[in-house]
């Protein structure tokens, strides 16, 4: 059946709310408004305002309330409008959600799911457009997921809710309207592995979230040059699936890491380091990175696009590492 990323996310929420009385959705305007990006549209009519619960503009309080409710055995799903706003709740996420289990010597569990929008590409300017997945992937005690495909949008929530520890799910804003075929009855997916979305022999393109379609486009462009690129969707940013990454690099001997986040201290930096630590002798060229420019994301369309990885810049980096310039 044909569906969109947004509808796949909504179907997953609907299924979770129907399956378990302990599950509830909480966040700014998740009710009648349908969430800032329309993901939860209609769910309040189905499940009522106590289980699809609007909150005031109080990120720290409602994320913290999700943590407390999870401690008490409920299964909250907290929606934060964008990753930029999540910084107002970062204390709760880092100092409480990620930390309580360890700090209590294993007594407390926080089975919480936090969903948030990330990324640029919609001319929303700096305060709505950043890509801070790497910051969250830095934190021990949480799992970080980045669904890039329809099956993942549909299938990551169920296992995330089953995880006894906090899970943060990043939905890239440019993906909500992506439509495609999704198998009827598509169910839960594995949330611990990366996925090879396209096979190739000459170079591995490693990407996640909103950069995945761009990496696939780049692979198409490269194919017309006779370069076959393997595209790996990281999917789980913490923990990273080293096995799939290294197996791909061992086949292609070259790697380009694509990351919309800023280059310095990025998730891409971590992936590159792991490749040099674990697969150095498999490499035929230095690992390359295509990252977000080191600038607050600008409003003007041409500047915004220039700040982000694009199929053309990914292609150029891939050509460089396979030694075929121009």
């Amino acid at each position: 059946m044909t569906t969109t990323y947004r509808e796949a996310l909504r179907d997953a929420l609907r299924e979770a709310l129907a399956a378990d009385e302990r599950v509830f959705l909480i966040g700014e305007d998740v009710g009648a408004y349908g969430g800032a990006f329309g993901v939860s549209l209609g769910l309040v009519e189905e499940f009522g305002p106590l289980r699809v619960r609007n909150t005031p503009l109080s990120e720290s309080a409602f994320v913290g309330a999700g943590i407390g409710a999870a401690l008490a055995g409920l299964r909250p799903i907290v929606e934060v409008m964008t990753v930029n706003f999540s910084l107002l709740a970062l204390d709760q996420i880092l100092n409480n959600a990620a930390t309580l289990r360890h700090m209590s010597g294993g007594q407390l569990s926080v089975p919480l799911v936090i969903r948030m929008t990330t990324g640029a590409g919609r001319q929303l300017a700096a305060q709505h457009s950043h890509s801070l997945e790497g910051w969250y992937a830095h934190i021990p005690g949480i799992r970080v997921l980045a669904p890039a495909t329809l099956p993942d949008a549909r299938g990551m929530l169920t296992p995330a809710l089953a995880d006894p520890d906090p899970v943060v799910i990043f939905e890239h804003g440019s993906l909500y309207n992506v439509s495609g075929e999704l198998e009827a009855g598509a169910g839960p997916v594995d949330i611990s592995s990366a996925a090879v979305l396209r096979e190739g022999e000459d170079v591995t393109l490693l990407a996640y979230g909103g950069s995945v379609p761009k990496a696939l486009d780049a692979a198409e462009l490269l194919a017309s040059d006779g370069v076959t690129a393997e595209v790996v969707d990281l999917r789980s940013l913490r923990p990273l699936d080293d096995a799939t990454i290294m197996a791909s690099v061992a086949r292609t001997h070259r790697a380009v890491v694509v990351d919309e986040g800023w280059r310095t201290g990025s998730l891409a930096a971590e992936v590159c380091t792991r490749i040099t630590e674990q697969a150095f002798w498999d490499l035929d060229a230095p690992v390359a990175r295509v990252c977000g420019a080191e600038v607050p994301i600008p409003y003007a369309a041409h500047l915004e696009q220039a700040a982000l990885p694009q199929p053309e810049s990914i292609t150029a980096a891939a050509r460089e590492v396979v030694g075929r310039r121009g």
Partner: protein
Amino acid sequence: MSTTRRKPARTDQGTHRDTDAGHHRELLASMLLIRRFEERCVELYSAAKIRGFVHLYIGEEAVAVGVLRALTASDAVVSTYREHGHALARGVPADSVMAEMYGKITGCSRGRGGSMHLFDEGRRFYGGNAIVGGGLPLAAGLALAERMRGGPGVVCCFFGDGAFAEGEFHETANLAALWDLPLLLACENNLYAMGTPLHEEHAQTDLAMRAASYGMASWAVDGMDVLAVEEAARRAVDGIRAGHGPHFLELRTYRFRAHSMYDPDRYRDKAEIERWRQRDPLLVLGTRMRAAGELDDMSYTSLDQEAADVVDRAVSAAESAPLEPAADLLRYVSTDPGDLPESLR
């Protein structure tokens, strides 16, 4: 006082229930245990047996003992980094608190939390939070869970006057009042946020009045008088259980010692400390009990000795307890399948 949506705010002058001598003895014993435990902590810190930031509660015992007496075992408690008193008054064994100070495996957080992060899930004691105000949203969530399940439980969140200046307090108060959460906001106003006096941290220092502006029943209490605290807490908890939403208590208290063991206490007048010592909660209750013929020197000494004995035993047990093996460093970051609680299997 301002008008409110549910109940007018009011100031409690401390009308006491006519309780029996046994009850008073229990309150006194509980405060003595906290006092002797913490005095021992000073010695142990000076001897480098325990380390880290250690924030003592000496002078504030009436607050923990009075408030927690008003709760049942099924209610939940969220605490601050100055929480030895809360933990002990909640019934967390002195052995397990002391072992935590020593960083031992028998500590209530297996040595991973220390003085500022005491937890006891079985007693619904959820920390031990060293971020000022950090426990408030979490307490709202525990209260939300009570409300969604329709149970009778109350959640009590302790925090200080410093936390009242944090957005966390105001976000949580708004949420709790908006959703009628069964939350007791117990503000320990000891007049200083670290070394900053109340009038330098708050434009308006009447905290109960400000809390009342959120539409919750709210009043100030003499925090040096354990009977006044207990009375106020019972009234608040009754109101919460009756479905009248969150309640706020401003517990006016004082810490006799510095902010932490690191603090040389240069910011306040020694005469001020002396004035407050005249209202030492042990003295206030002891004097009342003596006047009522419920206490004499011998019985006081005996109660005090019992508290000291409990602390002695806790220190001995902590001294001889094993350390968590360093090989287990990474345990409890994420849930090992074998560690899954029953409810999650």
